[in-house]
């Protein structure tokens, strides 16, 4: 076990027999531990499986590994939260989880000239199917009516009721993890910012934090504050847009129209920080590239306040409309038990009553928490996910404004970029967990003997949460799918990597 801010030597991770690893993971997941990443690393005696476990109550991480050979006994029947990790391991490393209840491709497409049977393209797979008179199947996508990313959804319907929804993604697969290992150093950060375009700051924060933990470099408090400011601005923009989109899907015109404009206000504030509306090129390992001077800080604080006032008013109009509340209440419920078993993260998990928020559970810095609080709901429906967004708007705006005032007042007292060593230390592992606006972004990096990446694992919150959406649709009306989908608003490219 190790502290989450530290890196450990990769060779110190105990190599357990596979049964031992499975027992340890299953046993700890029954208590307060969670699997944050489970992936393969090429080793001398074949693929090593590394599992990173986290316990928020003691703020401890643990890493275990095993060398299972060609197959291993699947953990999924006893520990459902690893189901997608195991499917991923199977198709990436060819190690088969025997007894996996639903072994299907996650995202693969054939390599050039590869065997299509061994590596099928995205969504080329058998689908779960309900048979019977009056049961019908509706397939949506991967090409959609709106301008959104590709994903394939299959509904097994009985009349208007959905008995089962199956989600097949993978159309956006770019092999990001492979690219990270084999890119030039100056291309890695832009790659991170493009894992999920709407979470550029979240993913770049995770990457920078990971590199700093490996190199044992601590950025200045000012750098941490600018990072937190950027992360909250990203949250503000995305929550505002999502609340508008939820209004749009219920047919509630005013909020839908206004929030589109207000989202732009928040994005423009981010662009004043670094020149990109999505926060690209702001962070770098060791700190941030652009400081905030006192004039900019005060001006942006005013703009945050104004944009927040508009957003608050617009969202309140929606939340005070009884017709909207009637539409949202009780729609797309995910139970606490399902959310915990599937390992949901972030806002979707908090809407089901799960006590998880990486900003408080795994703080990135020693800065005071300020106005940021954990917001939880217990109903697990679309309304809960809407209200959590609405509550977080208040906190994020207050936090961003306070940080801007502080940065303006202390301008010039401290630098915001700490020099980094030229190479990564050899043979070490570190973990970075960042609460992006969707939820926990987890990056795990392992360096090789040459000080280059030996393995790099990215877990976007969407990776966990897509199965939450599938659960939300059980016994739900098919006409409520777009609304449920918007209430999760998951990333396709973050999942597909």
């Amino acid at each position, binding site marked *: 076990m190790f502290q989450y801010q530290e890196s450990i030597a990769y060779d110190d991770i105990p190599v357990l027999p596979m049964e031992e690893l499975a027992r340890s993971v299953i046993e700890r997941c029954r208590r307060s531990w969670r699997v944050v990443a489970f992936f393969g690393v090429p080793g001398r005696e074949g693929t090593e499986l590394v599992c990173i476990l986290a316990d928020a109550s003691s703020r401890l991480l643990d890493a275990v590994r095993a060398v299972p050979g060609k197959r291993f006994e699947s953990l999924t029947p006893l520990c459902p939260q690893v189901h997608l990790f195991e499917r991923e391991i199977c198709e990436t490393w060819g190690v088969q989880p025997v007894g996996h209840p639903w072994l299907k491709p996650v995202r693969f497409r054939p390599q050039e000239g590869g065997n299509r049977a061994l590596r099928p393209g995205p969504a080329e797979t058998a689908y779960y199917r309900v048979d019977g008179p009056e049961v*019908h199947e509706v397939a949506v996508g991967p090409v959609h*009516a*709106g301008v959104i990313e590709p994903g394939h959804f299959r509904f097994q319907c009985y009349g208007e009721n959905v008995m089962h929804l199956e989600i097949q993604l993978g159309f956006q697969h770019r092999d990001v993890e492979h690219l990270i290992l084999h890119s030039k150093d100056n291309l890695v950060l832009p790659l991170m910012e493009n894992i999920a375009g709407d979470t550029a700051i979240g993913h770049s924060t995770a990457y920078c934090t990971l590199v700093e933990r490996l190199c044992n470099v601590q950025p200045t408090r000012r750098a941490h504050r600018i990072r937190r400011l950027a992360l909250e601005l990203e949250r503000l923009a995305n929550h505002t847009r999502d609340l508008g989109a939820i209004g749009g899907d219920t047919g509630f015109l005013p909020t*839908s129209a*206004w929030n589109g404009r207000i989202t732009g206000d928040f994005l423009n504030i981010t662009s004043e920080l670094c020149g990109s509306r999505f926060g690209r090129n702001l962070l770098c390992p060791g700190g941030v590239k652009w400081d905030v001077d006192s004039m900019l800080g005060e001006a942006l604080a005013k703009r945050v306040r104004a944009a927040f006032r508009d957003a608050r008013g617009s969202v309140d109009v929606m939340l005070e409309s009884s017709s909207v509340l*009637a539409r949202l209440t009780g729609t797309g419920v995910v139970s606490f038990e399902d959310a915990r078993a599937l390992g949901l993260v972030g806002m979707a998990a908090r809407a089901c009553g799960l006590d998880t928020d990486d900003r408080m559970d795994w703080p990135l810095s020693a800065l005071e928490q300020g106005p940021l609080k954990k917001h939880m709901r217990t109903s697990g429906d679309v309304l809960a996910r809407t209200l959590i967004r609405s509550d977080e708007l208040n906190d994020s705006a207050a936090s961003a404004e306070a940080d801007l005032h502080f940065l303006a007042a202390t301008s010039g007292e401290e630098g915001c970029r700490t020099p980094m060593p030229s190479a990564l230390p050899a043979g070490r592992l570190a973990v970075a967990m960042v609460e992006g606006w969707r939820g926990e972004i987890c990056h795990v990096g392992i360096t090789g003997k040459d000080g280059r990446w030996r393995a790099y694992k990215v877990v976007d919150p969407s990776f966990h949460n897509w199965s939450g959406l599938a659960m939300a649709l059980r016994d739900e*009306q098919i*006409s409520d799918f777009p609304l449920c989908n918007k209430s999760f608003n998951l990333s396709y490219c973050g999942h597909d990597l």
Partner: protein
Amino acid sequence: MDLRLYLAHFVLALVLAPLPLGIIAKVKALFAGRHGKPLLQPYYDIIKLLRKGEVIGEGTTWVFLAGPVIAMASAVAALALLPLGGVSSPFAFQGDFILCAYLLGMGRFATVLAALDTGSPFEGMGASREALFGAIAEPVLFLVFLALIGTASSLGEGALSLSALFNGFPVTAWMHGRPELVLLIFVMGVLLLLENCRIPVDDPTTHLELTMIHEVMVLDHSGPNMAFILYGSAVKLWIFSTLLIGLVIPPLPFPAQAAASLAGTACIACLVGVVESVMARLRMHVVPALVGLAGSVAAFVLILTLVR
């Protein structure tokens, strides 16, 4: 003279029919803080579509092509049975309300068949919804007719045609101690929103196929056939506006009543725009409850007229 006047009104209605759609869009745009598209956009759309080519799915038959034409023709025929601008229809006869209701029903039937003909799961879903909502809306419409007929017969007028029932008669009846007819305005309002697929029943502007009712049935149509569909639904909105106006406008001298009904149609379009701007859509399984509410109000009015 009456015939010529009626024809003039009829042509005017056919020409103005797409205008309310433009008014609704304009009102919604104002609520959203936008300039919105031009008031005449529905006309531009129809003209544009008429000049376009058409894509017809390989699996479809003549049913697919007949749907829009039948729907539009039956809507125009139904309009011809209504009293327009205070002038009785020359086609009026005792019991023509049944023909009117089933002309609309025929249009719906043709649209549903055309949707099923495509074989698309989306369109099948939309067809099933349209058929369900059509089936529950029909008895409510007849309850409204029956309540009016009941009132008319108890007031000693044997009116059994739309031209007699919706030509200022309801307002005269309120004045003669039949205030319960006011409730029918609410019922007709709900029917107008339901039959024309407006919020809170359906969202005509959504792009989400899974939530659509009417729009999803016409996804495969394009070009001139799409123009027929657009125009047919515009005429249908005009029909329901005329019925609703018939409940509120008293019998007036000639030019006044014609002007009042045109103004009324515009007002209704504005109201629909306001409703769409300030309300969210209902969950789909709640829609039957809304229609049920309208139906029970209509039944209540019918009972009141009968027990007098």
